């Protein structure tokens, strides 16, 4: 092997093994995904804010907060159970880590069921993507697209949690994978912290 080849090999080896910010590659990938997804949700919420601000007859269809309060409590608590899953996985307690991961997935399912129930209620009252009985039709498109994007993330998270949990239990994944899955789940929770006040609470009927 020539000196030039050895130099090239050394360079590429250095480029492949250096970890930016000294965090594992998979974790960095998840953070980059989260940053990109933050922009997606932010763009949707800013567009919604623009429409709401510029539309005089913006509807206020929500009469109570019970359903959204329960959904918020479930999602916030699922972040705690996810944390417990990560902690126990790092401690090497496989059975408990798997249990907490599945509890988190079940909380996600409960959240999705309540959300779909709420959607069906609104659809039953005559709300569609393009019209509703209360005011501008833009409300339906904003509401369904933003909450729809969020619930898609929740459902994808439930599936991923189940798969990662099972593979972790089976020994194919390790505690780092549970931690990376946790990052995603906390992000889903974080988005909800903005969706609740902007989409629900600002549109309460007084």
């Amino acid at each position, binding site marked *: 092997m020539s000196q030039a080849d050895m130099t090239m090999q050394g360079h590429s080896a250095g480029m492949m093994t250096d970890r930016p910010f000294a965090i594992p590659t998979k974790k960095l990938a998840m953070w980059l995904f989260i*940053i990109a997804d933050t922009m997606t949700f932010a763009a949707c919420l800013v567009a919604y804010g623009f429409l709401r601000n*510029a539309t005089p007859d913006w509807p206020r269809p929500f009469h109570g907060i019970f359903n959204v309060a329960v959904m918020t409590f479930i999602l916030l608590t699922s972040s705690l159970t996810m*944390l417990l899953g990560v902690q126990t996985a*790092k401690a090497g307690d496989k059975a408990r880590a798997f249990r907490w991961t599945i509890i988190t997935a079940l909380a996600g399912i409960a959240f999705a069921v309540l959300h779909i129930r709420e959607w069906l209620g609104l659809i039953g009252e005559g709300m569609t993507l393009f019209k509703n009985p209360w005011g501008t039709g833009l409300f339906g498109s904003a509401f369904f697209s933003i909450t729809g994007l969020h619930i898609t993330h929740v459902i994808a998270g439930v599936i991923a949690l189940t798969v990662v949990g099972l593979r972790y239990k089976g020994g194919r994944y390790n505690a780092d994978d549970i931690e990376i899955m946790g990052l995603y789940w*906390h992000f889903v929770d974080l988005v909800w*912290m903005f969706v609740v006040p902007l989409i629900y609470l600002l549109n309460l009927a007084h």
Partner: protein
Amino acid sequence: MATAEEHKNEGIGKYLAAYFCILALAGLQFVIAYQNITASQMFRRMLSVAIVEAGLAVMFFMHLWSEKRGFLLFVLVFTISVLLAMQYGWTDSFRLVHCGGYCS
């Protein structure tokens, strides 16, 4: 070296405190929703509370606080600058609602 049990209990108190803070802040948003204030005041208050909630979640739940400072700065500076850049359209929405789009 820390035992498995020590690992398990490590930081749980901190996470519980963060969880209850976030829960209380979420409750505060519901209280604000029933205050007799204008929509813009309500928006500002709720958004401020949401930002604090999100900050707690990112720093403690997502462990950003315990990552390298360079990474923390990368995530925060990049994300916040793009989020701020998205706010340029608000003046136009005020123009639309106040002048019906006809004033300059």
